[in-house]
């Protein structure tokens, strides 16, 4: 490996620390939704994809089944597969290295890599590995802190955690609402999920909105 540029290190580490800190919110929300500290930490270690993790705890916390939770989380995890597709030709790794690369293929590592691509192929690879490992370390440490903290709180509603979870989802979706088509889909999904809540078993109204997204995507 060639020398790592200072700018790549700076970008990767600052993003890793900021994003990793959200792990506190995840750990706390996970415990508030009925997961144990161990289960919360395993989700961060093994699933290691923020939106999917929040989704699975959100669905089970709302009384949904394991299958609904897994399905919702997995639909959100599809994009990591696409990131892998983008990164594979640049990383050119096999065997165990590919397993590691796959595990740290997330929004942030891919974003930093694509941002660094203008500078060089080396910068792109360095950005990917540094950010992937950086987020992994901080995300897991902060998850543990958040989960242990929430366990010590007792009634998590009294600490506002039941609002922190939807606020976290809102913070995740907000930057994606860049045009009217996306905003219309968001509003439709909100209305549909609420309308279906009294009718469908918990969890299903959430997954069902994915079909609205597919229908919209197929039309034009």
């Amino acid at each position: 490996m060639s020398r790592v540029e200072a700018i790549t290190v700076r970008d990767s580490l600052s993003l890793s620390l900021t994003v990793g800190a959200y792990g506190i919110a995840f750990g706390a929300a996970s415990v508030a939704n009925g997961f144990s500290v161990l289960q919360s930490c395993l989700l961060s270690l093994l699933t290691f994809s923020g939106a999917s993790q929040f989704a699975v705890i959100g669905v089970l916390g709302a009384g949904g089944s394991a299958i609904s939770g897994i399905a919702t989380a997995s639909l959100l995890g599809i994009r990591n597969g696409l990131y892998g597709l983008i990164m594979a030709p640049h990383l050119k790794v096999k065997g165990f290295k590919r397993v590691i690369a796959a595990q740290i293929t997330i929004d942030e590592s891919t974003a930093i890599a694509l941002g660094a691509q203008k500078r060089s192929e080396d910068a792109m690879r360095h950005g990917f590995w540094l950010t992937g490992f950086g987020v992994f370390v901080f995300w897991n440490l902060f998850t543990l802190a958040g989960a242990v903290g929430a366990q010590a709180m007792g009634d998590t509603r009294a600490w506002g955690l039941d609002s922190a979870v939807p606020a976290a989802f809102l913070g995740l979706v907000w930057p994606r609402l860049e045009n009217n088509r996306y905003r219309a889909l968001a509003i439709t999904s909100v209305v549909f999920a609420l309308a279906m809540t009294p009718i469908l078993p918990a969890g299903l109204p959430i997954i069902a909105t994915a079909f609205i997204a597919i229908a919209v995507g197929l039309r034009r």
Partner: protein
Amino acid sequence: MSPFWIAVIGTSLIAFALKYSGHSIPPQWLEHPKIARINALIPIALLSALVAVQTFTTKTTVMIDHRLAGVSVAVIALLLKAPFPVVVLSAAITSAAIYNWI
């Protein structure tokens, strides 16, 4: 096994399978523009539905309570371009204040 354990293991296995398959399948399989479009739309639909369900429902009942105040403050924070931790924290503080004192 409890549903929580099934969810933890199932989510983790599929999450890894999705990541690993991206690194392993030929890229031209997914080059279709419709796939790219749907991939951008699905997270928007699911995350919006999760915001709604987590704010307005308990089990299968739609209701308005202290959580709406918290999420409303999160909207204001996002409109003011606040960073993510501020968004989450301001929602939690507002919601806790209303839950405890009203």
